[in-house]
């Protein structure tokens, strides 16, 4: 028996696909349009069907070196070239380079009479000739149903269009066919969608006076694809689809911690900051220094050497810089060094999708590690609730997947009950939620900061008062008085009382010291007295002793002398001396 080595699991072979090069479309089609097969793009007027087709061709030529043929049934080559020139597509140049071939098919019913049987072999030959002369890999037919206005014999047309699709497949060219949307059906003739291998529906709708364009993949033979409606917009650089809701929750997480830019605030987090690549939300009522917090965060990011993108929807960059400079947050050097970029725009300038696209594109270009949006709540003014919510979801997802440190600020209404709620419901999306608020007390307002949530990290539960000085934000220590935490003037009063108490205590201590000193001095004096007394007694004693000794000595001397004199007078007899 042969040794069966375990074969590694092979990924399922995927349908070969041709990348469109259109921003976002390749993501939702999971790689592009079916290679060598026809794709139908349908939609009502003004959806950008032709644009999609042309961009598919131009990107194919420029990015993938695949020549293309555009067969236009409605517009002439010159018109088409003029229309897309604003997008930076130079069709005449591509034609001159033999990379593109424009073929305008003119159909005039008035010129044509029909007698008897015919087919559309002429169209096939034209197309085939165009494809073969430049070796085209991509073909766009815009809009094929115009044929129906030129010919009366529908049966022939239908069978010929079927044959055309078949023929294009056999040719192995990747084809995009555009079609007008019909009543209740995807196309007017209800034919093309069944013979296409992929159907993309473009939709243009107005909700609450705001136009949004949506794209949906209706079918894709032999491949999975994103099924949702994806917003797309037509930008200065062509079509841009936002496939952001297709993202899965599988972003990488980091154990690294980054500073918030406010040292005292960092200390409120167990790990000393926010997780790298996480999203944070700063909510607060008006004037609670949300922007200052955001700017601190930006400054800190720049100091770490990161690139930071700062979106402001309320102030101009100059205003922001000036305001932040007054509180010691000097952002200008980082703007000069190119690390910090401030993008200011009015939220109402664009629709939501465009904002999102702008943000996406700038992030793509600038590749920042930190993104700040101040404030997201302003975007509400340009969209309905659910739209804003879904857009923010997509944005937060996008930033997380990119591993970007994100900080959003949001204005919340001052109503006490709603103070800790965000309208947009994004609080559940963010990892960290910091709330700043007014602490209104005896005739004054003070600012308090607290952490409402911090995923994966223990954090302080205190509401800390903070002040904005010339060196930025500083958190004050918590002072607990009889009625809760003490802020502002009360804090000052408390402080003064504290000082008075300390002074009194110091004075008391001093007095005690003096007392002690005095006592010691008295004691020392007493000791000295006693010692003097003792000395005098000792002296007396010594004097007495010495007198005694002297007397004793004198007496002994006298006695000795007396003894001598007696013995001299007496005869020397042995027993004469006994008494």
């Amino acid at each position: 028996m042969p040794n069966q080595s375990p074969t590694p699991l092979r990924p399922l072979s995927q349908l070969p696909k041709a990348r469109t090069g259109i921003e976002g479309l390749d993501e939702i089609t999971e790689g592009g349009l079916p290679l060598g097969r026809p794709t139908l793009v349908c939609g009502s007027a003004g959806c950008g069907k032709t644009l999609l087709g042309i961009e598919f061709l131009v990107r194919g030529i420029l990015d993938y070196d695949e020549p293309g043929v555009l067969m236009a049934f409605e517009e002439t080559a010159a018109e088409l070239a003029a229309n897309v020139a604003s997008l930076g597509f130079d069709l005449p140049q591509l034609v001159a380079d033999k990379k593109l071939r424009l073929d305008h098919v003119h159909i005039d019913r008035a010129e044509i009479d029909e007698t008897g049987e015919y087919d559309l072999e002429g169209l096939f030959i034209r197309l085939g000739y165009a494809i073969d002369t430049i070796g085209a890999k991509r073909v766009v037919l815009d809009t094929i149903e115009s044929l129906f206005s030129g010919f009366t014999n529908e049966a022939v047309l239908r069978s010929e269009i079927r044959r055309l699709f078949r023929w294009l497949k056999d040719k192995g060219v990747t084809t995009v066919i555009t079609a007008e949307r019909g009543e209740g059906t995807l196309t007017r003739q209800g034919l093309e969608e069944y013979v296409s291998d992929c159907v993309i529906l473009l939709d243009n709708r107005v909700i609450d006076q705001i136009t949004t364009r949506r794209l949906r993949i209706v079918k894709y033979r032999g491949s999975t694809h994103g099924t949702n409606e994806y917003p797309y917009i037509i930008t200065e650089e062509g079509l841009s689809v936002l496939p952001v809701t297709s993202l899965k929750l599988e972003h990488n997480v980091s154990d690294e911690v980054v500073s918030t830019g406010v040292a005292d605030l960092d200390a409120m987090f167990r790990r000393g900051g926010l997780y790298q690549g996480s999203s944070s939300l700063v909510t607060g009522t008006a004037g609670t220094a949300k922007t200052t917090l955001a700017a601190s965060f930006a400054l800190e990011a720049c100091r770490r050497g990161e690139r930071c993108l700062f979106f402001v929807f309320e102030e101009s960059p100059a205003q922001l810089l000036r305001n932040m400079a007054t509180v010691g947050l000097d952002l200008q050097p980082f703007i000069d060094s190119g690390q910090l970029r401030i993008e200011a725009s009015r939220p109402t300038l664009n629709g939501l999708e465009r904002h999102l696209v702008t943000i996406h594109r700038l992030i793509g270009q600038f590749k920042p590690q930190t993104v700040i949006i101040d404030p997201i709540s302003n975007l509400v003014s340009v969209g309905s609730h659910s739209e804003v919510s879904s857009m923010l979801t997509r944005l937060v997802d996008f930033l997380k997947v990119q591993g970007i440190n994100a900080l959003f600020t949001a204005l919340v209404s001052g109503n006490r009950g709603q103070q800790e709620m965000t309208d947009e419901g994004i609080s559940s999306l963010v990892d960290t939620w910091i709330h700043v608020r007014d602490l209104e007390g005896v005739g004054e307002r003070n600012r308090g900061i607290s952490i409402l949530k911090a995923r994966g990290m223990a954090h302080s539960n205190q509401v800390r008062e903070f002040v904005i000085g010339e060196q930025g934000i500083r958190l004050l220590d918590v002072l607990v008085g009889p009625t809760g935490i003490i802020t502002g003037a009360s804090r000052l009063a408390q402080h003064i009382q504290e000082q008075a108490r300390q002074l009194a205590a110091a004075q008391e201590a001093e007095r005690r010291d003096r007392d002690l000193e005095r006592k010691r001095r008295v004691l020392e004096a007493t000791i000295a007295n006693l010692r003097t007394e003792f000395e005098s007694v000792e002296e007396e004693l010594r004097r007495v002793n010495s007198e005694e000794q002297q007397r004793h000595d004198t007496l002994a001397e006298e006695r000795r002398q007396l003894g001598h004199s007696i013995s001299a007078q007496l005869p020397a007899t042995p027993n004469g001396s006994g008494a």
Partner: protein
Amino acid sequence: MSEDMWELRLYVAGQTVKSMTALANLKTYCEKHLKGRYRLEIIDLLEHPQLAEGDQILAIPTLVRKVPAPIRKIIGDLSNHERVLVGLDLRALDPS
């Protein structure tokens, strides 16, 4: 006489049944109504595909009346006698 000279072009794609029928039909009409006053050019697009664009040919077979102006196109195998004559505006010229 020269202004009465008709210029006709018949576009075909190979020797298909439709093309052959069209050619046969056309020759019959021309011989009958335009004898000696027409020039017929037959273009096989399989051999000259580049010519299809010039006359905006889509359907095969297509008969194009280049002269006299305006340009007229008749598509199909020309089997309907009446329609061809009306389409080419032949009746008017026919003295009979």
